């Protein structure tokens, strides 16, 4: 069970939470200055230190994957697009059950990530600390008393931590409150971006909110600050949804049910169109309009109908039309 198909706290507004630590092994140049052999040495040393030989963690050599296989890991948010575009040896240490996905030789030697469904920053943080402690007990990590964890890019110095929450904000988007929200967040040292673009129904009304500050603040305070703000946003979003239902229940119900119909019966569907219908059906579940589709079942589509993941299911390359047909078919069979 992964972040996109499992239940989590505050699921109606928060899709997932992520904690990421950036770490580097002492004694090696940072990633952009690694030779291929040194990158392989980093991978061997880091993966051994992280896993301690525990077989529940898979170590996936990304140089051995096909483009579609590599891309599917981007689509389920395990790795970044930059990771699969790199030409250096690189690997992923993962345990899907725990939400653990550690990139080796991305921008830093070790990008330790834990993803959890819903609002679960503390749980994700505790798992990340467990892995980080095991890593730093077994390997020398680049660290300085004043600058903290030493990272390839100076903006990550200090905690090296990025705490983020993926939020679903249809009511705030439709009521044009996202701009003001982004501006307020910036004043608090937080940043916000649309998940796939600038934030609209074509992006599923999804946004990622993260901390920006990493030096001069503890990890615990970073998480507390982010959680406090997220709870306020949750309250605002729910209030706006209630107002929308009170002001125009028929119009919203009609929009939601048209999207249910499209997902259940469309013969072809593009990614953009899917995200729009996904968003309205998800809103419909939270408003009690849609009673026979769960967040988990709908959430699974978010990853399963992405282009590379569809290609892997088909077992061969798909052209754009074939992908749109395959997507619609998979959705009809799931929903």
């Amino acid at each position: 069970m992964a972040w996109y198909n499992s239940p989590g706290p505050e699921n109606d507004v928060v899709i997932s939470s992520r904690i990421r630590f950036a770490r580097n092994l002492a004694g090696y140049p940072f990633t952009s200055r690694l030779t291929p052999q040194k990158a392989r040495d980093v991978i061997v040393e880091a993966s051994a230190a992280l896993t301690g030989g525990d077989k529940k963690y898979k170590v996936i050599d990304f140089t051995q994957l096909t483009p579609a296989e590599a891309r599917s890991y981007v689509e389920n948010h395990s790795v970044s697009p930059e990771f699969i575009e790199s030409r250096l040896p690189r690997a992923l240490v993962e345990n899907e059950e725990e939400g653990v996905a550690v990139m080796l030789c991305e921008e830093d030697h070790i990008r330790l990530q834990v993803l959890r469904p819903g609002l679960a920053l503390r749980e994700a943080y505790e798992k990340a600390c467990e892995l980080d402690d095991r890593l730093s007990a077994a390997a020398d990590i680049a660290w300085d008393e004043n600058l903290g964890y030493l990272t390839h890019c100076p903006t990550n110095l200090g905690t090296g931590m990025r705490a983020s929450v993926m939020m679903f904000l249809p009511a705030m988007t439709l009521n044009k409150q996202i701009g003001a929200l982004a501006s307020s967040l910036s004043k608090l040292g937080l940043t916000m971006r649309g998940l796939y673009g600038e934030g609209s129904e074509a992006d599923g009304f999804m946004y990622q909110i993260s901390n920006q500050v990493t030096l001069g603040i503890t990890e615990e305070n970073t998480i507390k600050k982010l959680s406090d703000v997220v709870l306020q946003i949750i309250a605002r979003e729910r209030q706006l949804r209630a107002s929308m239902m009170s002001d125009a229940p028929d119009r919203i119900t009609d929009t939601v049910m048209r999207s249910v119909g499209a997902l259940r019966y469309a013969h072809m569907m593009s990614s953009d169109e899917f995200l729009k219908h996904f968003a309205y059906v998800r809103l419909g579940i939270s408003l009690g309009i849609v009673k026979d589709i769960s967040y988990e079942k709908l959430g699974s589509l978010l990853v399963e109908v992405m282009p590379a993941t569809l290609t892997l299911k088909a077992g061969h390359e798909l052209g754009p039309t074939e992908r749109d047909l395959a997507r619609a078919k998979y959705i009809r069979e799931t929903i």
Partner: protein
Amino acid sequence: MLCQKCKMKQANVFFKQTINGKTTQLCLCEDCAAESGIGFDFGFGLGKSFMPGLFGSVFEALSDGISSDFLGSQSTFTEKRCPMCGASFVDITHSGKVGCAKCYETFAPELSGTLQGIHGNVKHIGRRPKRIA
């Protein structure tokens, strides 16, 4: 040899300038070199280019007839490089990233203003590794 500007610290940044056949040399410590604007501003890939006018004025201010064969075999341009990864400050400003952990120590004077700009005047108060080398 001592830095020509402060006359206190050891010089380890050496420059040679030749204009119209006349060569002058400059020997500075890291701090005076950074203060004099000899070098690059760290700009995350948007680094300012080298400022020859400022460089020239430093030469005029400090040059006092030092012989062009003073450095003997040091006849080529010498810039500071990280002893661990070989990165120069030019490399860092060009890419926006440092080359290794040692760069933070090697280029501490050059980086201090930039780190302060990003993070403010703070130090780390968060987690530490279980094992510190």
